[in-house]
């Protein structure tokens, strides 16, 4: 394995779980689609690695690629149905686990009802990123993100309660 490949392998291992989970947020939790998207993200990471200039942390840079890739790829596809995913869960899991998954799916559904930029902001917040980093990824000021987050959190909480 070349140095470039082994560096990339490390980047891949360190970042795959968070990239995958963020992609799940855009796909209503659809695993197959999320895997495809995560692969697409790492292809772009590989193709652009030479242009990474340490202006931001590597993780922020990868999050930017993830958000942009998910937005562009999902616009090309039809909306992702959650129905098939739920049927599969009802067949395979115990009642308690199903209940938990149903709650999570309700959360996914509510996230997907948000405007695309708000969706990205709340997904990054759920992943535990500091507001400053979210502002850097989205390209808005810290203040705008703070105000917007407050509004989205209320909207999301209200939606999940319904």
């Amino acid at each position, binding site marked *: 394995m070349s140095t470039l*490949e082994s560096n*990339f*392998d490390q980047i*891949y*291992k360190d970042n*795959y*779980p968070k990239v*995958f*989970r963020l992609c*799940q947020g855009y796909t209503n939790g659809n695993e197959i689609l999320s*895997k495809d998207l995560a*692969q697409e993200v*790492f*292809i*772009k990471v*590989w*193709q*652009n690695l030479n*242009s*990474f200039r340490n202006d931001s942390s590597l993780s922020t*840079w990868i999050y*930017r*690629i993830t*958000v*942009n*890739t998910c*937005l*562009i790829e999902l*616009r*090309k596809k039809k909306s992702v149905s959650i129905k098939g995913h739920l049927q599969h869960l009802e067949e395979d899991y115990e009642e308690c686990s199903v209940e*938990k998954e149903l*709650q*999570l799916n309700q*959360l996914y559904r509510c996230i997907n009802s948000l*405007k*695309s*930029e708000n969706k*990205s902001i709340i997904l990054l*917040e*759920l992943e*535990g990123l500091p507001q400053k980093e979210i502002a*850097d*990824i*989205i*390209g*808005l000021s810290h203040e705008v993100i703070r105000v917007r987050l407050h509004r989205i*959190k209320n909207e*999301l*909480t209200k939606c*999940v*309660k319904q």
Partner: protein
Amino acid sequence: MTEFKDLKSKWEQQPEVEVPSNGLEDIIKKITFLKYKQRIGNVVLLTTVSILIGFFFYINAYSNGLVTFALSVMIGSLLIRVILEYVSIKELNQLDVTTNTSTFSAIMARYYKRRINIHYIFTPIIMLLYITGFVILLPFFKSSLSEGFYTYILVSSICILVIMVFFIGRQIQKELHILKQIKH
């Protein structure tokens, strides 16, 4: 009562994500495949141009001014369409995904606006040129081909045209939908 922190804890309780063991290999394979696909695309484009130019000389099209003009218009309009698509695809693949989302959305919106302009301005002109070339050739086809073959060419061309309009229409609808979503 559901609070945002409950939602966050629900989000955090999701199962751990396993890193695919052959992930790196798959990515390198896909990158190699993409490069290969691009090379195939170039070869197909060059072969098409060569065949069209070869056909032009094979039928001695240059010996008749009007046939030369009609064929040149048809071949030229097809080539312009193919080149426009090729440049567009290349441009899409080169969009800077490493920039922030607001800038990226603006770049995407500009790209799709250009695409819509291509569809609404260039595509009708190209199709009109292609049809004009074909119509100019019809009397030559009629005089040199059997009636059956002439009818076949006429009917199949109309069918191809209808199918092409249908697919281009669908593509325009799809790209308009994407542009609407970007603005959303």
